[in-house]
Structures are given as structure tokens and as C-alpha cells.
């Protein structure tokens, strides 16, 4: 009834959803996500769109057992509030780690993963999730 996920809508937002495109305000020097044409802090239109490094830290998290329609196969699902290196925050799934191993302040990085399978023969939607950061030596 309510889900308005459509390929066209996802495609228009592909840079935002898959590459974490965000906005940087040249006037007040702050970043925010999702991007838009006006700064959320100072209202300036002197905005630059940038792409995130994908790295951040977990600030808060919860484990969702009663998952929404479309996410039921993923229960229990860890959702974290993540603060990105660039200063903006977003909510996303945290994967490849057991809930009891997660702690606030843990370093994570963005990974492209399967989000939802729309029924047996339906579309597969992908999106950004976060996994523990593996430091490259």
C-alpha cells in the first residue's frame, strides 16, 4: 500500500543512494546529507556537491527485530547512526558484524549491498550499508 519505491525514483537518486553524494556549503563550511540546493544551516545557495569517502564512526545503534515490509528476511537488523568523516550523519544498516560486537565509536565504511528483493520474481534493490572498516596496510 504505502511503499513508493520505484526504479525511476531510485535512479534519479543514484548518486545520493549509491555514492553518498552530499552537500557542502561554501559559505558556512558545513556538510549535510541528503544533498539539496540550499544549505540546511544558513540557507545559502552557494552549495557544492561532493562525494563521501564512505568512512565514518557509529554514534548510536539499535537492533531492529520487527523489520519493515521488504526487510523481513534480514531480521534482526542492526541500524546505526553513523557520523561520516565529512561531518554529516546518516542512518544505515551495519553488516558483517554481530550486534554484540558493535560499540559506539566503532569505525565503519560504506559497502554496496542488496537491500530488498521485491518478491520472488520482482526487482532487486541495492543500497549502501556499513561494515567494520578494514584498514589497508
Amino acid at each position, binding site marked *: *500500500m*504505502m*511503499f*513508493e*519505491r520505484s526504479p525511476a525514483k531510485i535512479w534519479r537518486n543514484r548518486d545520493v*543512494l549509491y555514492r553518498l553524494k552530499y552537500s557542502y556549503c561554501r559559505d558556512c563550511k558545513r556538510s*549535510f*546529507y*541528503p544533498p539539496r540546493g540550499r544549505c*540546511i544551516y544558513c540557507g545559502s545557495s552557494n552549495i557544492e556537491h561532493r562525494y563521501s569517502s564512505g568512512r565514518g564512526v557509529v554514534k*548510536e*545503534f*539499535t*537492533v*531492529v*527485530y*520487527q*523489520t*519493515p*515490509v521488504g*526487510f523481513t528476511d*534480514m531480521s*534482526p*537488523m542492526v*541500524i546505526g*547512526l553513523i557520523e561520516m568523516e565529512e561531518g*554529516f*550523519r*546518516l*542512518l*544505515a*544498516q551495519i553488516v558483517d558484524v554481530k*550486534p554484540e560486537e558493535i560499540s*559506539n565509536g566503532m569505525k565503519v565504511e560504506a559497502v554496496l549491498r542488496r*537491500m530488498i528483493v521485491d518478491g520472488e520474481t520482482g526487482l532487486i534493490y541495492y*543500497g549502501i550499508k556499513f561494515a567494520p572498516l578494514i584498514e589497508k596496510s
Partner: protein
Amino acid sequence: MRRKVAIVGTGHSIYGVRNDVNLPELAYESIKEAVDEAKIGLDDIDLVVVGNVGGWSSEYLPAIVINEYADLAGKSTFRIEAACATGSAAIKTAVDAIASGEADIALVVGVEKMNESLTPVVVEFIGRSGNYFWEFQNFGLTFPGYYALYATYYMFNYGVKEEDLCLIAVKNHHYASMNPKAHFQRKITVDECMKSRYIAWPLKLYDSCPISDGSASIILASEEIATKITDTPIWIEAIGSASDTSNITRRKDFTGLYAARKAASEAYKKARLDPGEITRHLDLAEVHDCFTIAEIMAYEDLGFAKRGEGVKLIREGQTYIGGLIPVNLSGGLKAKGHPIAATGVGMAVEIARQLWNKIERGRQAPIKNGRGLAHNVGGTGHYAYVTIYSLTKPRG
């Protein structure tokens, strides 16, 4: 010059799964009770404010349908929506209309039928009181998950334990068991609560309010009329209202709800109450305990306890009758139920009846100050209303 406004009649349906009635029938249960209690004629009403979120029930645009069912066709009417704070927003709208002189007698009805849709649809829809597209649809968070983020903050920073959260549920079920209008009529134990399944860790099923159907109504009148109708009008002493960001990622911190703090501060200032001694002014409070953590945050946001110390109140039983301040003697959203738009109006009905000493034995608060407080939150602090009700006519 604002006119003073008072409640002169109250009505409250049974909350619960109400598949026995349709939306206007459910609304009329409380409308009839309120009109009868106020002893006014329908002709006397000149404004009908309908609070309804809808979306999950078959009547999408319900104001006119309810209006006709209650034989109120011809009256000025419309629907108000502010997520779970809809009831309080509807009250504010009517109060402002009377205060400004645009209306003399207003009916406020809050009504919701949530059980016409399946639970996943309801849970998903209520998520729209946050930023649905960016935080729910694309990333899979749920509405209980929003509150769970606050709960984990309180666990890590203030030493709140899951058992503490269950103490809130136990208290509210205790009082609901004495409220014949409540959705849940059964007492529970901490053990039962702790054994219930997780919805969004650390919140469990018994930490969460149910999906309820119900309606509540009040009749509001100007000072001139209210004092003619009754010797004991319940005055609207002050309403504080505020909002916060739709994206929870843009909240500065997770220590309570900013909108609730702002609304409380505005209400205390308007009513000229000392925020540092607020519990000394009040006999009781009805607070928005959609999840148990929300009641603990409410203690702090309202100034009943210092930041991080709200949990002490429930551990010490200070929010039972006889304690510092009785909270949610109706059973609260947790156990009386939470028919979204009815909730704020239902709080007004409960407080009015408490102040009138008309409540069932066992859950009637001792009335000394003649004043009660309603704390009604929409979303996860996206909207907040704090309303002060009093037996004493406000000064000024």
C-alpha cells in the same frame, strides 16, 4: 486580548480493538458523552475540530462524515493533524479560536481506527512522522527503532537498564487494570516484560504501546459561557507547543526530546509556574509513553527530575500515587492505549476527571493544587505539546 477558555464536558470511548464500530460511530461514543456532560444542545456548538491522522482506516477525509453522523451538519469543521500529537493540536486550534473571539463553544474530537490495517502497514505508516524517504524507506529503520536509539543512549550514558524500562510498563499496566476504558485490563510483572520479544533492541513488546482504536472528546467554552454552564470548569491555563527536525540524524543529542523541553518551558512561562519546583504545582501528569523510555525522558524534559536522573523516579516509585508526582494514572499510552489522534484529547479527559475527583477508586490522585499536566508528543519529538489544566481561573 485573549479570552479565557475552559473544558465544560468530557467524553471517552473504550480504547482497544474496536471492530464493532466504524469511524463515525466510534467518534460519536465520546461526542455524545461530552455533549451530555456539558448539558448543552448541539445548536450551541459553533466549531467542530476533528483530530484524525487516518491513512490506516477507510475514512480518509473524516471531518464531514463525523460531523453529519453527530447531527452537526452546518457547523464550521475541519481536520487537524500533527502525528501522535494530533489531539493536542486539535485542542490548541479550538482554544485559539475561542480565545480570539471567533467561537464561543467548540467540540474537539480525536478519533482513530488503526486496526483496519495490518500491523506492518500501521508501523510503516507511523514511520512517516519522521523523515520517511531518507530514514525509513531507504535504510530500513522503523518507528520503534527511532525511540530505541534514545533508549540505547540512556543505557550507555545514564545507566538505565532494561529492567528499569519494564518498571514503567508495570506501573502503567497497574493503573490501566483499574480503568474500564483502557485497552489492557491486566497487570504485568517485570519478569513477564523482560521475557517479551524484542521489537527494536533494547525495546521489547511490553515496552511498546499497542495499536488501538478509540475516541475522546471535550467541549470547550469561553469564560462567560463556561461559568454559566458549570461551577467547576477546567481552565486551559497554558499550552506550549514546539517541533524539531524531521531527520533524526540532525538532532544535536539524544538526551531527551528538545521539542518537549521547549514546549514545557513555554507552558510554564505562560502559566507563571516555577520550572524548578514544577511538581509542587501539580497533582498529576499524563505523559506520552509510546515506549517506556519515552516516559523516563518525559520526567526529565518536564523538569520532574534532573537530566539522567529520571530513572530514579520509577525505581523509587515516585510516579505512583503518594509519590512525588503520579504519572499516567489512566494507564498511559502503554496500557490505556494509543489511538493516535484520540490520545491528546484522552489526556485532557483524564485530567479533567481527575481534577473533578470522578475517577475510579484506586487510581484517583489526591487533588491539592487543582492542576494537571498533559505531555503529548508527535513522532519522536517531531512535535510536542505541553498543556496545563487547572481548577483555578488563570490570572491576567
